[in-house]
């Protein structure tokens, strides 16, 4: 399972969009929308932005990053880890 979760299904339902309509507007196949909604596929950054734009929400409202270790690291630890050369 990818560590990126999303709210595409909920946001799409709120806007009464079908999977096919969303797929057409984003420019992907319906199967890709299904895979994203099931958290089986993490889209590229460009596609993620396009999905958020079609659903009219900020990117972080549509996609959330959940580390595989369950987010046990604190923000300080994460910053230290990222800043290491």
């Amino acid at each position: 399972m990818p560590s990126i979760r999303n709210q595409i299904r909920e946001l799409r339902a709120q806007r009464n969009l079908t999977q096919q309509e969303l797929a057409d507007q984003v420019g992907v196949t319906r199967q890709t929308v299904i895979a994203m909604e099931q958290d089986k596929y993490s889209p590229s950054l460009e596609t993620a932005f396009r999905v958020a734009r079609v659903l009219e929400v900020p990117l972080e409202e549509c996609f959330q990053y959940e580390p595989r270790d369950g987010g046990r690291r604190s923000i300080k630890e994460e910053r230290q880890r990222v800043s290491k050369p």
Partner: protein
Amino acid sequence: MPSLSYREKTLYASLVAELVVYGPYFVLHRQNTVNKVAGMILGIIVLQAVLQSVIALVTRNRVTDERDRLIELRGYRAGYLTLATLMVVGLGLLWFHATMGRLPLENRWAALHFLSVFFGMLVISDIVKTVAQIVSYRRAL
């Protein structure tokens, strides 16, 4: 097949074409000739062209996206690894038989045998590539 994308349909068609055309190649291995191999290559091209044309005609939405390209790359990776493995094993066997003096290169059938073996490697790799792509689609990726 309403739940299949255009790319998936073309992959199933490719797999059917490969099995129909190459199946006899493996079953009737000992009766292979150069003409037969050439006929098989021609046959797969014609059958693929017909099947892909029919699928393109009956499929309205022929969109392909980044996931299709990713799955295609995965298939090519699986196919390449298979081909590389078979080549290493094949060359190893060749070297083994050559050092044991059991390689009758003067035999006129040796060339056909090599042609058969290397063509078989390509066929197996191609089938692995197609199957890997189908499995990736069925597993969502």
